[in-house]
């Protein structure tokens, strides 16, 4: 049966060529849409890693004229005490400018046990950082005041980096880095934080404790406030900050606002992309429908003859629908060949599961599209009366 249908298609390969290429191209479009949707969905379904509600970020573009390390430390502690004394402040931490959802990024790389790891987000934090952001520790501990005097620089890494470096082993206590004077000691592992918004991957991350060397680059404060903190309190906080940190432009943002903005950066272009792809698909569906319809009206004689020698209406429409599905299969085999290159070549560094799920979804989608477009023409063909059809000849 299928062999016979295949022969019918092969005989008309020239006429079918355009039909095939149309299905092929629309498959690629659908594949692109599904790949991004699956990618975003997979990331979205993972936990956020932090709680951003009621966290405010203060930027004071560090243009302090204090050069001496000790006085700088004094100054930072002074500001900390003054802010913490405010009634609605629950916890406070200094941070590098790349706190979650900020536009700033800072990445680094290192070689450990001969393997190179790069694109690691590096954060400079303090002992209270994980409390302010309610981060979850999966292993070990966060920094505390015993960490200032160790031989090796203590660091906390995230789950993704731990998995890449140590697999399922415990990472706590391990030394990282091949250069003797730059070895770092892992003291804890935290759950991945999706710092670029809910729809993007967390990537590798490494947290350092702010020390004398790094303090001069610090220009941000994260503050966890109590639920009753309102705009009046914010304006009061602003005055306190401005009086404490002179010669600096100060900005307070709410993490919830920049979180929404980050998500918008993904949702907005994606919506436009889906609208455009949707219109393309409607366009293609109408085209397929038209062409199939026309082809069937051209084959009235053939269909009439089949009906006359006893084929049921159902089997005629079955034949036509399966013909278009086989046609689609031919195009999809070629399409799958191209699509499968994405996970094989690891394009864009995205997990291959994303591409594979997207591939399955797009195959299903295109089959469904072709099936629906051939259903009505198939029905029409089944309704052809042999006497009328053959009479025309």
């Amino acid at each position: 049966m299928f062999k016979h249908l295949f022969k019918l298609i092969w005989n008309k390969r020239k006429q079918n060529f355009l039909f095939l290429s149309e299905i092929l191209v629309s498959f690629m479009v659908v594949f692109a849409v599904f790949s991004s949707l699956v990618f975003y969905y997979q990331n979205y379904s993972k936990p956020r890693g932090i709680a951003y509600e009621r966290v405010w970020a203060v930027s004071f573009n560090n243009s302090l004229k204090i050069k001496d390390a000790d006085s700088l430390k004094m100054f930072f502690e002074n500001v900390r005490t003054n802010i913490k004394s405010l009634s609605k402040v629950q916890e406070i931490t200094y941070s590098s400018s790349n706190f979650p959802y900020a536009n700033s990024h800072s990445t680094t790389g290192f070689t450990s046990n001969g393997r190179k790891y790069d694109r690691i987000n590096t954060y400079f934090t303090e002992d209270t950082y994980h409390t302010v952001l309610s981060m979850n520790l999966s292993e070990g501990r966060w920094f505390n005041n015993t960490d200032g005097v160790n031989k090796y620089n203590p660091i906390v890494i995230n789950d993704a980096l731990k998995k890449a470096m140590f697999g399922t082993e415990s990472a706590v206590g391990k030394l990282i880095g091949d250069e003797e004077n730059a070895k770092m000691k892992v003291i804890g592992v935290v759950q991945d934080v999706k710092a670029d918004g809910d729809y993007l991957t967390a990537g590798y991350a490494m947290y350092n404790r702010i020390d004398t060397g790094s303090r001069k680059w610090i220009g941000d404060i994260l503050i966890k406030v109590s639920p009753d903190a309102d705009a009046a309190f914010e304006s009061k906080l602003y005055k306190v900050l401005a009086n404490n940190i002179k010669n600096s432009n100060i900005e307070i943002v709410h993490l919830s606002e920049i979180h929404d903005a980050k998500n918008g950066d993904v949702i907005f272009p994606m919506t436009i992309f889906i609208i455009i792809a949707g219109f393309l698909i409607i366009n293609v569906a109408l085209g397929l429908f038209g062409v199939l319809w026309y082809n069937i009206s051209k084959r009235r004689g053939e269909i009439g003859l089949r009906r006359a020698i006893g084929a049921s209406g159902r089997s005629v429409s079955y034949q036509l629908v399966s013909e278009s599905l086989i046609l689609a299969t031919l195009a999809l085999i070629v399409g799958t060949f191209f699509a499968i290159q994405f996970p094989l070549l690891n394009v864009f560094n995205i997990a291959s599961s994303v591409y594979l799920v997207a591939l399955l979804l797009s195959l299903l989608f295109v089959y469904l599209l072709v099936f629906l477009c051939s259903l009505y023409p198939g029905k029409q063909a089944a309704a052809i009366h042999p006497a009328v059809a053959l009479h025309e000849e």
Partner: protein
Amino acid sequence: MLKNYFKIAIAVLKRRKFFTFISLFGISFTLTILMVATAFTDKMFSPDYPDYKRARSLYITRVQLENSKDGWINVSSASYHLLSKYISKLKTPEKVAIFTFSSPANTYINNKKLVIEYKYTNADYWDVAEYQFLEGKPYSKQQIEQAAHVAVITAATRKNYFGDVATAVGKYIEADNVSYRVVGVVKDLPRTLRNFYADLYLPYTVSKSDYKEVGLLGGYGAVLLARSEAEMPKMKAEYEQMIAKVPHGDKEFDLMYVNADTSLEAFSRNIFGNGANSGIWLMITIMSLVILLFLLLPTINLININITRIMERSSEIGVRKAFGASSRTLVYQFVVENIILTLLGGLIGVVLSIIVIYAFNQSNLVPNLSLSLNLTVLSFGLVICLLFGLLSGVYPAWRMSRLNVVTALKSQ
């Protein structure tokens, strides 16, 4: 002759309404998207408020320090020191505008938070960019030298800060815990203009950070304005000669790129290029590839539909051939018919684009960015239409013209 083709085309269109609908739908929707995209690009790249002098401006927005041995790169904007000590000493430019890129600060009025983007500028800035002053005037050179706390604000800031008042000049605005006297109010501009957008403009001398700091990297950008378009190459040459002599001081880095770009180059360098290469060709290639890929699907669809329509008319073609019409005449006829169809679709596309653009402007998705269909956009639409018509018409016409008279006539 053409009149006949036109009549035939209309008759054919009326005959199979469903196919006509599919073709017109495809054409008009494709065109709408392309035209809206063009309107957007046109808005981005053609001279617009307040940056009318793009044709004779060079933009310095980026400093790249590179260590070619280890591959370290440090990219930032320029320091005031670099711009004032070297670049504003050039002879050819008529004016050199120096400014910071806007950054946000908070202010609180009646316990309501207002985020204000402020920008520090020099006096020439107001001559290079032609802001439209709704009231007052820009701050003067003297005021800058005296580090006076004066400010120019936008109409939106006036409304947000002072409420619906007729005039704000002379009043005081508090931003970042400092009070400034308003000296002028300018018309709003869209955020897409990175070099010119701000809510509050201040003299660079009141900047809280130390603008005199020696070094190459900082928060500043500059626009070099030539006296005429003809002097642009001369200005560029003088600039390159000068910048090659600037010592980069830093031992860690051996290469320094400070580019003076046209607005298009500046845009492509930030996204596709680097210090050595403006990336303009890469940008053009990528853009054309995207457009081509986007056109591919509707084109194939249209070709498919056209073949179907044409084969329906095989008896007509057979008769015309039998009476001696050459293949070429037939191809010509069909291509003309198809172009008529495409232009009709194009017309609907223009109407749709007007609706979409109107909706976009009304939605205020990008505040103060109002798109419009101008001659550039329309002519681009026409070119795409013709291209579309030709592409989708030639192949079916060629197939048709090869039809054998006997089979063509027999099939009915």
